[in-house]
Each structure stands twice: as structure tokens, then as C-alpha cells.
């Protein structure tokens, strides 16, 4: 074998050796379409398509439990969702209908759907948008920003940028587990690029035949002692008609 050819082969071997640790999912993460990574991460958060589930939100301040609320969420995974408050009792029956960027609020106190501004997506200790948004891939464009190691895990950092005003946040820094593709943590950013909230995807469990998110922690970036823990449960997949996401249905 000519020395030149030998040299080329050894370079190729070196390159293969260098790349071998990435030959698994990490390599896929680096090479894969970032949008595909977000879609895969979405599937760890919520099942795709029409889905119904409950979220229990426990708010803490300085480590002390402040209050507990519970919501029932219906989502079609395509930007349409209906969030109904189940607890506390005083607010039971309140609903927020989100159809892309349009929001309607219904309260049993007034028994009338009321159009509300996009900012209402951000109200509440946990933003209404956080409760209902099952689909980052639909709301944000993604780019791979880099990789890092944290807590013994290899993470891929995705920079998500809102496609439209209908997204809850202007941008999201989204860390996913390079090996599994599961979301690990996120920084939710305002239009000025300031971190508003930090999210930690804490626990995964068996949901509709797959390992999916069952607990998430959301920390206020300014007032760090304010923490909300979201517990997801009672997932079910069933066909939800378009009429369910209409203003005419919100009162039922």
C-alpha cells in the first residue's frame, strides 16, 4: 500500500475514532434537523394529536406551599386548546379558549365569553400558555446552539424563536437530553431577551404507551423563591371536534 493511501486510511480511521462517541443519539442530535429534535421532545412532553389531561399546580414561596390549583386541558396539538379550572372552588368553571393567537375567557360569574388580549397567556403564577401549549414545534423555529454536559448528562441546547405572536414566549432556550431526546430544562424569554421563567422537566412516567413528562417545575426568574410544580395526569386520547374549540361551545 502506498504511503499516501495509508495516510488517507489512517486519517479516515482517526476521523471515525473521533466521531465514534457521537455515533449514537448525540451524533443524531448534532446532525439532525433541529425542528425534528423539537418534535421528538414535544412527544416526551405530551402525546400528539387530540389529547385530554389534567394538571395540578402547586405554588411555593420560600419553600412554603401557597396554594394548589387544578386544570383540565383539551388540546388538538395544532394550536387549539381549552383550559378549564377545576380548583380552587371559587374559580371552578373558568375557561380559557385558545385558538392560535385568539383568546377567549369564560367565567361562571359572568357566563359570557370575553375576548382577551394575548398577554392573558402570560397571566397566572403558571402562564395559561404553559398549561395549554403541548406543541413547541408548531410555535417556534429551532436552531441547535451547542452541546454541554450537566449533571452527568449530555445536553443539546436548542434556541427556539417564536414563529408568531400566538406563542406564549418570544423565545425559549431549550435543553434536551442528547441521548434520549427528552427535554431537561428550559429558559422562557421575553421579547427583550430577558429570562422570565426557568422550567425543569423533572419526572417522566408511562403515559399512553410512552415515557412522558409527568412533573415539571417552573421557577420565577426574578423572584426565585416563587416556584410552581406542575403534575400532569389522567391523559386520554379521544377525537375532539373543531366545535369544541369554538366560542359558541365555551359555556358548556
Amino acid at each position, binding site marked *: 500500500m502506498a504511503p499516501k493511501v495509508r495516510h488517507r486510511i489512517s486519517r479516515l480511521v482517526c476521523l471515525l475514532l473521533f466521531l465514534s462517541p457521537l455515533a449514537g443519539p448525540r451524533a443524531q442530535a448534532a446532525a439532525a434537523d433541529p425542528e425534528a429534535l423539537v418534535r421528538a421532545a414535544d412527544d416526551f412532553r405530551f402525546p400528539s394529536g387530540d389529547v385530554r389531561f389534567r394538571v395540578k399546580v402547586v405554588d411555593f414561596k420560600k419553600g412554603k406551599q*401557597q*396554594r394548589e*390549583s387544578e386544570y383540565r386541558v383539551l388540546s388538538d396539538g395544532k394550536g*387549539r386548546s381549552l383550559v378549564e379550572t377545576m380548583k*380552587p*372552588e*371559587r*374559580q*371552578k*368553571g373558568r375557561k380559557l379558549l385558545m*385558538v392560535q*393567537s*385568539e*383568546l377567549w375567557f369564560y367565567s*361562571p*360569574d*359572568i*357566563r*359570557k*365569553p*370575553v*375576548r*382577551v*388580549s*394575548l*398577554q*392573558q397567556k*402570560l*397571566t*397566572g*403564577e403558571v402562564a395559561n400558555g404553559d398549561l395549554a401549549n403541548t406543541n413547541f414545534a408548531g410555535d417556534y423555529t429551532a436552531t441547535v446552539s451547542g452541546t454541554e454536559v450537566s449533571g452527568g448528562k449530555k445536553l443539546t441546547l436548542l434556541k427556539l424563536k417564536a414563529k408568531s*405572536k400566538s406563542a406564549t414566549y418570544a423565545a425559549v432556550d431549550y435543553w434536551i437530553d442528547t441521548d434520549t431526546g427528552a427535554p431537561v430544562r428550559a429558559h422562557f424569554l421575553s421579547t427583550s431577551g430577558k429570562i422570565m421563567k426557568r422550567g425543569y422537566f423533572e419526572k417522566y412516567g408511562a403515559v399512553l404507551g410512552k415515557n412522558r413528562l409527568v412533573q415539571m417545575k417552573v421557577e420565577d426568574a426574578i423572584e426565585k423563591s416563587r416556584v410552581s410544580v406542575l403534575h400532569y395526569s389522567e391523559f386520554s386520547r379521544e377525537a375532539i*371536534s*373543531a*366545535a369544541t*374549540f*369554538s*366560542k*359558541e*361551545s365555551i*359555556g*358548556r
Partner: protein
Amino acid sequence: MRSGWLVFGVHLAIFALTWSSGAQHALADVSWRLDSRFRYGLRVGEPMGLATLQHQAAMLSEGPIGDSWSFQLGARIRGDGAYTVAKHHFAELEKQDPPEVLLREANLEYRTGDWILRIGSQVFTWGEAFGSFFADVVNPKDFREAGFGEIRDLSDPVEAVNLIYAQSEWSLQAVYLPFYRANKLPYPSSDFFPLALADRFRGMTIDFDQSENPTNNDGDLGLRARVQLGAFDVAFFGFSQTDRQPIFLVTPTSLMQARIRTKSSRLQTYGGTMTWAGDRFVVRGEILKNINRTFNVLQNSLLNPLGELEGEQDIFVLGLDWPWNSGRLKGWQAGVQASYDRVSIPQVFGRRETEWSIGAQLFKDPEAGTRYKFFGALSGADGSWLFQASAMSPYGRNFEMGWETWLFGGERDSQFGSLKKSSRVMWVIKGVFSG
């Protein structure tokens, strides 16, 4: 009588379906909510004294019956002890407006695909404005407190067949109401009976008969279409109806006695509503035209001061509201609204030919903590005004307690000044229970 039996039949059908053995399994998803309220109020204007001692409990239950059907069943009991305690002030009100037990929402809904059919007693919400009901034309209103109570109590459910084809971005709706239901008006000895009307009959004994007296009641028919176009949500409707707001027919029975009956005539209402939502605020608008509406007009007769005349009415409402999501006012929401209301005939009783007003509201409705609400309106036509404020603090999981005040000012014959006798401060306890 016929309508009474039909209403009874619909209610019976709902109960039967609800409690049938086949429905028992599905009833696991049935929810209910009981709202109770106690108000102790004092008049702050002349004559001062007890204004209200009102108890109210309203129950609403709803849920699916199988896969395609669902029901809604609501009832309310209400009574005001002030009518008995302060008989000297409220005169006959104890008998005229006795404690009531009302079956309110009682309807069945059938869904197939994107079609929705609701049959029975129900509430329609077509309007977009706050504090006014111009475009909420379908349901009669309970004006016994001049329309200043809680919004959910003001629209009385009506028996209707309601067919909707709905997509999330647009919908078509057809409604048919076989029976006539009128607005409930305050009785002459109520604090909310307009002073302008009371002045007309000062010193006379009035026999006020609110029994429904429609002319040409062939049932009401309405059509509505709604579409979302970008940030705009626009709806158009037409409604052929017997006027929910009756006029007064005065029959003098002697020099010192008069009988006042109510009468309702046919009219056609055409209108549109729109909302536009931006990042930070929402714009709301309503436009309405009432054709062939019958109004009371003043006439030069000592014995019968009220005549009747047909005319047209044009109404425009434009409002803006926005929430604060940061800074010191975080959690507060504000709104302003202007309305313009013109009738085509002169000398209309109880109002001016052209009325316009500007209203503003400021409220905070947090997930936890005290709820505040302030609302003020100024009539541009006569300078009268109203101001409402409330603060309700939570007590435990189920209760809240606080105060409410309603103040009215202006000339006796003005839009809000004619209600100044009903200015009051109230201590309020509310309870919410659900399952």
C-alpha cells in the same frame, strides 16, 4: 297554558334522561356549582334606611348523557327580607315581588361532528360590550335592580331551539323561540322604579300589571354568523322578535288611580359585533338597528300622559380594554367604553332622543386575594352619572366577604339620576360550592 306544559315537558324529559339507568354511568362526569349570596344594604340617599336584605342561592348542574348528549339544569331561589322588615318604605313590594323559586337553564344538547343542537331554556350571549346588553337581544333581562346586579343573574334563560354549526374560526347559528318572555321591570314601590315615571303619577295609586301582553307573537327567529379574520372576530345577526322591553299602557281608573299595563310589539333587530385583540389590548364594538320599535311618548293629556309611537333606533358601542401584566398595576385590568343611542321620534318617554355615555372600569380578579371592581359612567346627554365599586376578600375555600356600593347622581328625569333613590352601600357574603 300551552307554553307552560311544553316547558314542563322539556324539564321532565331532562330529569328522565338524567336519571335513567343508562345515564347513570355517564353521570360520573356531571358537575354542579352552587352560588349563594347574602346582601345587607343601606340606602345612602334620601330617604335613608334599609335597602336590601337579600338571600340568593343559584344552582347549576351540567354534564354528558352518553356520547352525544349533555344537559344543563339550573335553578335559583331568591328573597328580600327588607320588603317585610321595612314595609313602611316598600309598601306592596312584599306581595308584588315575593320570594321566588325559578327553574332557569334547562336544556339538552346534542352534538354530532361540528353540529350542535340545544333545545330548552338557555342563555345566548351575542354582545361584546361590558355593562350593557345592546347586542344581547335574545334573552329578556331582569331589570328589577335596573340591570346593576351580577351579570349572570341579569339574563333570564328562554326556551329555544338553537342550531349551531361551529368551527373554531367561524360559526353559523339559527334560533327559534316559540314563547314570548318580557324583561322584568321594577315595581312602583321599588327603589329602582324610575323617578321620572313615579313623578308622572305622584299622589296616585298605581295598579302595575306586568303580566306578559304581546301583540302578534308568532315566535322569534334569529340568524347569526361569526367569523374570525386575523385578529378580528366579527359577527352579524338579524332577529325578528317581540320586544323584550315593553311599553306602558296607562288606563286612568279615576282621578287618583291608574292602571299601568305593559305591552310588547314586534320589531326587527339587525346588528353586528366585533372584537380585535392585540398584544396588550382588546377593542370591542357593537352596532344595532331596531326597526319598527314602539316607544312610549309624552302626550298632552292630564289623564293619560303616555302615548305610543313607532320609530327606529340606532345604537353604536365602542370599547377598549387592556390588562397590566407588569409594574405596580400588575394584575389590574382597565376598560373604557362609549355608547351612542338615537331614536327617530321626538318626545320619547323616559329618555332623550339622543343619548350617549362614556363608561370606564378598573378591576383586579386575582387567582388568590381580594377582588376589586370599579365602574363609572357619565351620560353625555344629561350629565347624570353612576358609580359602582366592590371589594371581595376570600375566606377559606368556599367563601368571600366584602362590600359593594352603587351610587347614582343627576336630575330626577335623567338617565342615571332617575335611579338615585336606589344608591346604596352593601355588605356581601358569597359562597361557592361545587362538585
